[in-house]
């Protein structure tokens, strides 16, 4: 499992798109789904994980993490998985409580994803830095 992280509008998707251009790929934008879909392509790109967290803000966090990691592991059992997440924990503490909660939950979930990842790469305006 490869993970790409970077701030908003830093060129993460553009970078991954050119990586997978020749492959049999299923591109899943978390923003488009409430629950993650079934997938079986050779390569699965799971993009914008923060949107999944946002869609499930009203459920207990443990269950949300469990659901996500379970789906992720199902994907991984049959496909190469690339995950794209957006850095959102390096700004001013948000005034709105819900945004704070989103940021905290993203951080905890991202830690789990990073732990299981084979490689983690940071994208900075199209350039890459290996973190793991």
């Amino acid at each position: 499992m490869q993970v790409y992280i970077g701030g908003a509008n830093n060129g993460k998707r553009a970078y991954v798109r050119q990586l997978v251009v020749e492959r049999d790929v299923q591109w899943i934008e978390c923003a488009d789904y409430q629950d993650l879909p079934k997938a079986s392509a050779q390569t699965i790109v799971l993009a914008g994980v923060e949107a999944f967290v946002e869609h499930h803000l009203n459920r207990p966090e443990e269950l949300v993490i469990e659901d996500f990691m379970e789906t992720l592991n199902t994907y991984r059992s049959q496909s190469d998985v690339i995950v794209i997440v957006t850095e959102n924990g390096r700004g001013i503490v948000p005034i709105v409580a819900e945004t704070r909660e989103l940021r905290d939950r993203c951080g905890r979930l991202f830690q789990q994803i990073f732990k299981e990842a084979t490689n983690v790469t940071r994208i900075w305006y199209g350039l890459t830095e290996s973190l793991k």
Partner: protein
Amino acid sequence: MVRGTLTFISGGVRSGKTGFAEEWLMNRSCSRLIYLATGVASDSEMEQRIKRHQQDRKDYKNNWLTIEQPRKIEEILPHIRPGDGVLMDCITTWLANELYEGWAMDDPCFKRENCMEEKERRFHETIYSLLKNGTTLVVISNEVLDEPLSRIPDVVLYQQWLGRLHQWLVKESDYAYELTYGLAKKWK
């Protein structure tokens, strides 16, 4: 004419971007050093920030020529000579000045069709002209995209344009640095 170089420098607020950029340029053999200031002293706080940067430049042994150009960077071209070193400080204020231009007349650029696209095109052309003219160009910007996107659509638009400009600058740059309180990470 030897092509100039483009250096992109970004970092958090008060991370030492300007000081690093000034040193960087003073260590090159530029015929003149030009500080291209995009900030406008719109209030007393901004006035203080500008004064501090001005004082810093006075303290150097090298002379700096300051050009204040909040918008329309292309207008500096007639004043730049081959071999000059130019420090543009910074993209974030320039973008705000361009994107919200016309705000007071209730007709901001970002609401006009192709307005910002046209400004972006002129910006690209200006950079290419400077480089063709042998300018040692350093462009400063800020790291402000590592937090949740704003809920305010006008701000989201700003965030998108900023990311897009940064990606272009990094792609075109010969050198790219990220500053963390005086420490520079060389990305490129």
